[in-house]
């Protein structure tokens, strides 16, 4: 690292200015919104009332749980697919073309996916109609809580798998081939190779993928809103969707602001998760 006085600040300046204006100012407004209520009668402190409501708000905690569960399902399916696809792509000739096609769904945008999936995955939707005429069966994709959550994860994955696979695959390429060959010679099978060799060597990119996935799921709103509408049994109301419901549907802007800040605080806590050895899990390096 070079210790230079002026140059780095010059580089950062536009970013910092814009960050300050368009990311920090809104947060300040949101903070003010959640703390006080300014109207014609004067300034009222509403922070404690909002926190009180939040603590007793079952739906808020449920949406947090939903988000966490969906995140875990998402991560599991995602890594499962990433490992399979990465290993499939290893020695194939046209792997660039396959990666290209895998990446292609990323450009559509989640809102469009939600609309498309709404036609495809309902019980009497396109996919089931095809299955019915071919095999005579229909699958209840969205009918119960767990199915819906899995479908949410899959819908999100559709658009993001390519990006993450590309990330991981590039990282995998940085591992010398000889490592894998030595492992096979010493009698390791594919699964052991994955768990004991590949994963430890790609930990940094795995951490990045987990971090970015968490951000993705916390921000997830278009798909629950348009595909499952929060049901069944409110099992697919994610935290972003709930904040939207409070802010836009119920017009409880102050309370929604409080919830938003609370989630930001939860996110902040991630940087305080420590590994068993005492180092921080997410080092800023």
């Amino acid at each position, binding site marked *: *690292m*070079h210790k230079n006085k002026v*140059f*780095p*600040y010059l*580089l*950062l300046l*536009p*970013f910092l200015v814009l*960050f300050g*204006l*368009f990311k920090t100012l809104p947060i*300040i*407004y949101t903070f003010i919104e959640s703390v006080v209520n300014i109207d014609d009668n004067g300034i009222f402190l509403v922070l404690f009332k909002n926190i009180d409501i939040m603590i007793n708000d079952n739906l808020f905690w449920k949406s947090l749980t939903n988000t966490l569960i969906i995140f875990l399902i998402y991560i599991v399916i995602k890594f499962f697919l990433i490992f399979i696809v990465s290993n499939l*792509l290893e020695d*194939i000739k046209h792997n*660039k073309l396959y990666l*290209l096609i*895998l*990446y*292609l*769904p990323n*450009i559509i*945008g989640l*809102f*469009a*996916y939600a*609309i498309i*999936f709404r*036609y*495809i995955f309902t019980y009497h939707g*396109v996919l089931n*109609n095809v299955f*019915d*005429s071919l095999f005579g069966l229909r699958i209840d994709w969205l009918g119960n809580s767990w199915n819906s959550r899995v479908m949410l994860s899959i819908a999100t994955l559709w658009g993001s*798998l*390519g990006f993450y696979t*590309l990330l991981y695959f*590039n990282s995998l*390429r*940085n591992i010398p081939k*000889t490592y894998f060959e030595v492992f096979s010679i010493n009698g390791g099978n594919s699964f052991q190779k994955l768990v004991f060799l590949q994963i430890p060597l790609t930990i940094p990119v795995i951490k*990045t993928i987990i971090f*970015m996935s968490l*951000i993705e799921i*916390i*921000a997830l*709103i278009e798909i629950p809103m348009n595909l499952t509408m929060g049901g069944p049994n409110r099992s697919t109301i994610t935290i*972003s969707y709930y*904040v939207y419901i*409070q802010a836009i549907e119920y017009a409880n802007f102050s309370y*929604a*602001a409080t919830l938003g*800040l609370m*989630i*930001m605080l*939860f996110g*902040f806590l991630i*940087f305080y998760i420590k590994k068993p050895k005492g180092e921080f899990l997410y080092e*800023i390096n």
Partner: protein
Amino acid sequence: MKLIKKLTLLFLTIIMLFPFVFVVIGSTQDAGWAFRTNIDFKLGSNFLENYNYIKNHFYIDSILINSLYIAIITACFSVIIVFLAAYAFNKYKFKFRNIFLVVFMTSVFIPQAGLLVGQLKTMVFLGVYGTIVGLIVPFIVNIRVYIYLFQVCNYIPNDLIESGRIDGASEFKIMLLIGIPCIIDKLLFSFFILFVGSWNNFLIPMIMVTKGRNYTIPILISSLSDPLSYNTGSTFLALLLSIVPITIIFFLFSNKVFNINKRIV
């Protein structure tokens, strides 16, 4: 074994492409196509009809140009500004560096709906509410791309930078002539990501737009997918109009951008 690998990959890619196929076929079909139980995946003959519906109700040429222009400008400014910051954080140590990093990382977590009113108020305060500047400048600071580029800067070897310094080059020249060329493909990739992000950006543009000629494509799509609408063919066509330009740009870019690292032996 290789054959099984190829077949699985083929299967996966076909699944991935299914939404595209669905949209393409749907845009040529009539309103009831997606709801029939005996649905058939053939191209229909209603493309012109669906297109005319959109043309008669929206300023489709303005909409496409708006989306294109805003996306290009946003992506250009954004990739430059975000890269400069990512490079600075990755290659230099300075006061408050760690604090800034934590603040950046944490700011991503707040859900947009909660922040929405704050963002809008900021734009009113800065006088950019409802202007085209308001559709571009707030979206230049993209933290996800920042995180990506921050990691990508690790691919710029520090020894190369050091040797540049030893040779007496200025920091700016080093960044320009050594740093950027190392990761030019990743920068182009970031440009592409930013372009797509701006192209698909919906919520704030929708709230701010007050004139038909200032719509962007996501607003068009949302307007056509009102739950009570019965122009399903037009909805698919609008989705197609959103997807096709990006796909073209994607394939144009893919040579430069999709560089898979060479396998280290």
